[in-house]
């Protein structure tokens, strides 16, 4: 297991999570390192998305959910009653499995979050759009069509719009839930490159079903099974000499 160091940006402590009566996460404790890529892997239904959505309080939107334990972000339990989930979501961005740009122009997609945050100045917004699109390596492809609907773009471009949109909030952490599973290999490669680039500035936590992807892009990997964190180790170790037999069976494709 990873030892506690001061460069943790998020620490999950003994978390249990319930959808109504059914328990989706059991006693999960794990830390996420700053400016690293952490991959979450495991068979379908093991609770990866649930864990990811726990980190920016997206699960709050589902009726009847309940959290036990603590999720500490910047020395604060984000589930304390006095914490505003809206504030948390501005600091911890999210990219979804299916590209979901708004049915608005590219420009308005990127500026959606910043405008909510009170940025009104046009030139400031324009600068932000350029910067975010460049970070998502999409600027050259769309710089002349910023006023067109984002829905007209290809799936891979749409997903990069979604990444740019999240980056425009200047978040500290970027959560990605299977961001490439709906994309072709070329788009996937682009996004993987992008993640490599982004980790210099951001902490990235990514759910993936693709073992090679986890191995390629992540620094740490957590393996989940039936709502439990089975093994959490540096990616290289987890994929070469895993501590737990179940992990080995999963990554070699013998179950899951």
């Amino acid at each position, binding site marked *: 297991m990873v030892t506690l160091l001061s460069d943790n940006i998020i620490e999950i402590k003994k978390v249990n999570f319930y959808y109504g009566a059914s328990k989706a996460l059991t006693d999960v404790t794990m830390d996420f390192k700053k400016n690293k890529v952490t991959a979450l892997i495991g068979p379908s239904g093991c609770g990866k998305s649930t864990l990811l959505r726990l980190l920016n309080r997206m699960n709050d*939107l589902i009726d009847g959910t309940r959290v036990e334990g603590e999720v500490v972000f910047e020395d604060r339990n984000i589930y304390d009653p006095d914490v505003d989930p809206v504030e948390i979501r501005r600091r911890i961005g999210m990219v979804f499995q299916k590209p*979901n740009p708004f049915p608005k122009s590219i420009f308005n997609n990127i500026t959606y*979050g910043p405008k909510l945050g009170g940025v009104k100045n046009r030139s400031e917004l324009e600068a932000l759009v350029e910067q975010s699109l460049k970070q998502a390596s999409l600027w050259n492809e769309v710089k002349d069509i910023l006023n067109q609907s984002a829905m007209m773009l290809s799936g891979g471009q749409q997903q990069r719009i979604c990444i740019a949109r999240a980056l425009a909030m200047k978040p500290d952490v970027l959560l990605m839930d299977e961001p490439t599973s709906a994309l072709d290999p070329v788009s996937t490669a682009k996004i993987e490159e992008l993640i490599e680039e982004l980790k210099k500035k951001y902490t990235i936590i990514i759910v993936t079903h693709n073992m090679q992807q986890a191995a390629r892009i992540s620094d740490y990997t957590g393996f989940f099974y039936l709502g439990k964190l089975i093994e959490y180790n540096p990616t290289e170790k987890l994929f070469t000499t895993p501590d737990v037999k179940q992990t080995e069976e999963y990554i070699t494709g013998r179950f899951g």
Partner: protein
Amino acid sequence: MTRKLKEKIIKNIFFLLSLVSIFVLGLIVVFLFKEGFPIFKVVSVREFIFGLEWYPTYDPPSFGIWSLIVGSLVVTFFASLIAVPLGVLSAIYVAEIAPPLVKEIFKPVIELLAGLPSVVLGFFGMAVLAPWLQNTFGLPTGLNILNASIMLSIMAVPTISSISEDAIYSVSQEFKEASYALGATKFETIARVVVPAALSGISTAVILGMARAIGETMVVLMVAGGAAAIPESIFDSVRPMPASIAAEMGEAPFRSNHYYALFATGIVLFFMTLFFNLIADYISNKFKQVGSATL
């Protein structure tokens, strides 16, 4: 019988059935025009539409329906002024905000409004609203534009709210999640994502609600007061086109000029509702494809 043949027969049956309804509709329109056109041998189209005097039984008669048209437009306008915010906001409330229990009560109640027979609404307008308006504002009569607009708006609200609600429901959950994940509150999400994405459906709802109001007969017949004059305030009586047709058709001698004039009024009304429906169609198509990109 082969499966293919069966398919073909079923397809043709459906085709024939839909042809029947289109045919009947066409027949009605042809009839309307045939019975209405002869009036234009007596008055010009211009005189008919813009003429200020509607004295169909005088000697000599005058057939100008401008005040009837204005009557229809005025009550429709004020009814929309009331019904659009009510209908749209209640749709937003039911679809996005109401807790499940409240939703379960509100939804059927609003839909029940649509099932109220218009004569009952008209009766309510006459017996309850009219005396109240008369006393409260010290009017000669409570049967006026205001009364008709209020009663019509009650008829339009269910149309507007149920179609808007469907439009709001069909906004995909993914857009909402994206909005929340960017730090939007519930109300920001509704105002900036849900409503814009549902706008084509909401506009359609509004226009169909207005079409419903402009074509409604019984309510305006009972509560609009029936004065064929250009109104000067919302407390004046008016005589909307459907009310005029319904009230006079019984007395107009068959194929007299009066009879023709009433049918011609029907033609005008037909074009107005057609116009509303075309706009509704246009809007829902226009916004659909581009995904209301610039909103």
